[in-house]
């Protein structure tokens, strides 16, 4: 365990190991999310009240779930940056932030598209929707701040502090529907109880969520590899990777 942690200090080792994992993440992620989304959109039964419009959950729930999950991962990486000064943790935060921002935009957009026919409005300033919008601004702030300093170490520390402080928003998003009166409904799934949904609905949803996780893993490793190459551009091994092109021993897992 500790050995793995120490090895992550070597950019070259990370580049190689990431390249080995990435094809699996991409392949499995595509299979699972396509299976979940096609099953959910085309074959799962209709809802008794909403008819077909409920099917947007097969996109909305995975993106909203990941948007929060990615932020949690970034906050853990932020603590690692602040305490252990591990460069790779900062590389992860920079790589993941734009992905998280896009997931949040997708969650807000699909929610609005669903809200119009179901609630009768695109947007309402209730606690869940507003805290999710704050999450988007946090992501945008992190992206902006990470480009605001020319010194890498200063940028890493500033970004890590902002990421860690922003994590208080995550429980607010999660529990907003329980703590306050909101238009958004409470969670359908709880960790401690078995789902009240029929399996034909929750199994495709679960597949889509798992697939989105794996695809996030792939895209973040890909972006981390690129950032590692940029930071290490003056070193011997990067010059070797580039000279060898696709024939290098160190594989990029990019498509």
């Amino acid at each position, binding site marked *: 365990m500790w050995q793995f942690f120490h090895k992550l200090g070597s950019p070259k080792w990370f580049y190689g190991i990431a390249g080995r994992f990435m094809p699996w993440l991409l392949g499995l992620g595509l299979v699972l999310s396509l299976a979940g989304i096609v099953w959910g959109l085309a074959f799962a039964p209709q809802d008794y009240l909403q008819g077909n419009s409920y099917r947007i959950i097969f996109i909305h729930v995975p993106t909203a779930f990941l948007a929060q999950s990615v932020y949690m991962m970034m906050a853990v990486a932020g603590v690692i940056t602040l305490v252990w000064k591990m460069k790779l943790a900062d590389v992860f935060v920079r790589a993941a932030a734009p992905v998280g921002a896009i997931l949040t935009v997708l969650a807000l957009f699909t929610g609005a598209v669903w809200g119009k026919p179901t*609630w009768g409005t695109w947007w309402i300033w209730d606690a869940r929707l507003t805290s999710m919008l704050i999450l988007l601004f946090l992501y945008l702030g992190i992206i902006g701040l990470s480009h605001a300093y020319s010194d890498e170490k200063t940028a890493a520390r500033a970004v890590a502090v902002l990421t860690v402080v922003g994590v208080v928003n995550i429980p607010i998003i999660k529990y907003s529907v329980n703590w306050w*009166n909101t238009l958004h409904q409470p969670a*359908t799934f709880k960790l401690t109880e078995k789902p009240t949904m029929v399996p034909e609905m929750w199994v495709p949803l679960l597949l889509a969520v798992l697939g989105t996780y794996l695809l996030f893993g792939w895209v973040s490793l890909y972006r981390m590899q690129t950032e590692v190459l940029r930071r290490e551009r003056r070193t011997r091994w990067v010059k070797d990777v580039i000279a060898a092109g696709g024939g290098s021993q160190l594989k990029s897992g990019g498509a």
Partner: protein
Amino acid sequence: MNPARKRKLTIVLFLLAGVAVAVGLTTYAFRQNINLFYDPSQIAGGEAPVNVRIRAGGMVEEGSVARDPDSLKVQFRVTDYSSSVTVHYEGILPDLFAEGQGVVATGQLNENREFVASEVLAKHDEQYMPPEVSEALERSAARAREEGREMPEY
């Protein structure tokens, strides 16, 4: 862990705890502003201001919806199963509006403590099920009523 890292970790944890307490107290102080709507008990208890634009929310009481045959005027009662408030509205209701379903209405309380709404939104609950399951549930509920049994809550 070496002492320098331990110190940094402690600082980070204190920072996080401090921010959490600050945000917690702020949201607690603003809870009435964060709440999207007043529920019928709050309105009955006099917590909601009169003649001020507010939102009221709850379930549409069974058998309370009365439509005016010549216009879009509609009247219904919103309940939280302990108190209820009468809502007057003129306009098109959302598709999901039905007796026993949740709604959030925007409007004003008049002097008679009745709610005059300018907008009615449907509130969806966390239940999703295929139509067959919903029909089966209704059938078994009807059977249970005939036999005088209690139905489990879904």
